[in-house]
């Protein structure tokens, strides 16, 4: 259904997330380390964006800022047109909880909780009642193909299954952006591909915006658009024509 025209239209659309001349500086001892040096980046609705770069390029820092996990030293970050660069942690937490879905390389599930409880967790922090939580979490786990593993703890699940739980957890709040940080880094190539397919499906069928952060050229190729990060700046941008 998508044509080149759509792509053009997309670029005209207002971005969901817009980073404007963003700097992030860390102080290590007496030295200042500039992780980001005036990064400009826009994330559009429904797109599949890859942020690619070698380690030390600042892509983790960029991901933290896109995901509202951190605030920049300098510059603006607009989320839905609102500058969040100076917001308080509690407000950021709320934004994260409602608009961002995280998928990590380490899966980052809570080991004491079952798959179902892990998936329900974001809704607990939003005060959603138990019955609704249960219903939604069950639905999400079924969607990622884990309907029969709901009461297993992470230790009882394989890496791929754990990542599926994490994806279900990220989806449960119906986020605007799914932020995946090396989601296949801890998986074998076959499982990794399954997870990538799942993410692609979410983007295509569910119209979820996906931002993939990776150092892997291969993975980045799956995205519609890739930005290359080096020394805290975007050095290159690549758009892919959609094969449909």
């Amino acid at each position, binding site marked *: 259904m998508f044509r080149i025209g759509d792509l053009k239209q997309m670029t005209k659309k207002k971005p969901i997330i817009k980073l404007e001349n963003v700097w992030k500086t860390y102080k290590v001892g007496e030295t200042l380390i500039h992780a980001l040096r005036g990064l400009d980046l826009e994330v559009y609705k429904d797109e599949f964006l890859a942020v690619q770069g070698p380690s030390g390029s600042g892509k983790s820092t960029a991901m*933290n800022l896109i*995901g509202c*996990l*951190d605030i920049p030293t300098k510059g603006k970050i607009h989320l839905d047109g609102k500058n969040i660069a100076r917001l308080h*942690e*509690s407000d950021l*937490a*709320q934004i*994260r*909880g*409602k608009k961002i879905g*995280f998928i*990590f390389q380490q899966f*980052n*599930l*809570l080991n*004491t*909780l079952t798959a179902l*409880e892990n998936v329900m*967790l*974001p809704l*607990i*922090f*939003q*005060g959603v009642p*138990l019955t609704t939580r249960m219903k939604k979490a069950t639905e999400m786990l079924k969607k990622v193909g884990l309907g029969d593993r709901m009461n297993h703890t992470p230790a009882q699940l394989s890496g791929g299954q754990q990542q599926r739980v994490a994806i279900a*957890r*990220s989806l449960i*709040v119906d986020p605007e952006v799914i932020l995946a940080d090396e989601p296949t880094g801890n998986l074998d190539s076959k499982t990794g591909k399954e997870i990538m397919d799942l993410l692609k499906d979410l983007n295509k069928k569910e119209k979820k915006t996906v931002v993939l952060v990776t150092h892997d050229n291969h993975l980045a190729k799956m995205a519609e658009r890739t930005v290359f990060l080096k020394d805290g700046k975007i050095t290159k941008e690549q758009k892919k024509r959609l094969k449909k």
Partner: protein
Amino acid sequence: MHCENKTMIKIKDLFGIATKNLKHRKKRTLLTILGIIIGISAVVALISIGQGMSHSINNEMEKIGTDKIFIQPKSATGMTMSAEGGAGTIGKKDLNLVKKTAGVKEATGIYSHMAQIGFGKELQTVYSFGYPKKQSEASLMDEVHTWKIEEGRMLKPGEKGKVIIGTDIAEKLFEKDIQVGNKINIEDQVFKVIGIFKKVGDPGLDKGILISEKEIRELYDEPDLFTYLYVEITSNKELELTADRIERKMRKDRGLKEGQEDFSVQTPLEMMEIFNNILAIVSIILIGIAAISLLVGGIGIMNTMYTSVLQRTHEIGIMKAIGAKNSGIMKLFLLESGILGLVGGALGVLIGFLISKGVEISAAQAMGTDMLKAFFPWYLIVGALLFSFIVGTLSGLLPARRASKLKPVDALRYE
């Protein structure tokens, strides 16, 4: 105004996460709450035994009545300057003096002495008491002593050659049990046992014998002195007043100044007060010790929670990433430490209950009386639980604050 952020976490939702964390580390949880368990069980046991004791003593005093006054020679600790040294004495003259005091309805005196009694070939030493001849005096004595007859019948005032014996004498003292109708020797004179007292837990009475006053005075060649005087007053509203009158009169008779008395005049209220004061002091000391234990327990919880924050830093990062606010993390950790306190408190209440029941049962076996009843009001249990929850929560305050202040990025990076 519409509130945009409706994202209030509900405590009951965090409950599940908190309990799972505690269950996950059972041994540590148990070790952590040990201090609380000891502290709370000590407090609960002490209060329940203390209150039970106080109740039964007060009951006993009420049974005796608030219209009674007791007079006795002041013991050596009273330290009078009398030439003879030691305590003063109380004799028939004093009894008559008391009887003539305004507000006094009746008065009687009891004389007691150690007695050698023989049954079969055995000889044993017991306490003997004299029972007055006058009916009204005898009734007053019955009332004060609240003695009951287990077997046989009570001594009649003035009855001679008969004796009532305590249960310990009947059942324990001699190789062969003494039955009603048996004959025993008191200082080589023969008496017939006509009754056995019911066990009361008072060693004086359980190991005592009661004979007529005339006979006891003859046996020990003591025509005059009394061990105790018992007074019944006309109106219990004038208890203190009458007690004062008696004291003044006796002092005047003996030519003593105030503060020099070689006798003491006591009311049940005063005796209750003395007892309650002693109990209060003992309680304060023991509860102080328990408080230290609770403090140590609280520090234990704090330590555990700090460790927990450190161990779960990454977890805190995850929760923050998926939308937990600082306040949410704070609540979770406070809840966990509160539950630690509460579980410790619950176990403490249980153990405290068992301890005081154990004391009650062993006291009943040792003294053969139900005098000491452990006292378990609902507010003691609820209070102990609430208190332990508060101790737990307060101990978790600083660790929870630290957890909540962690930066999400740093916490996520922490492995």
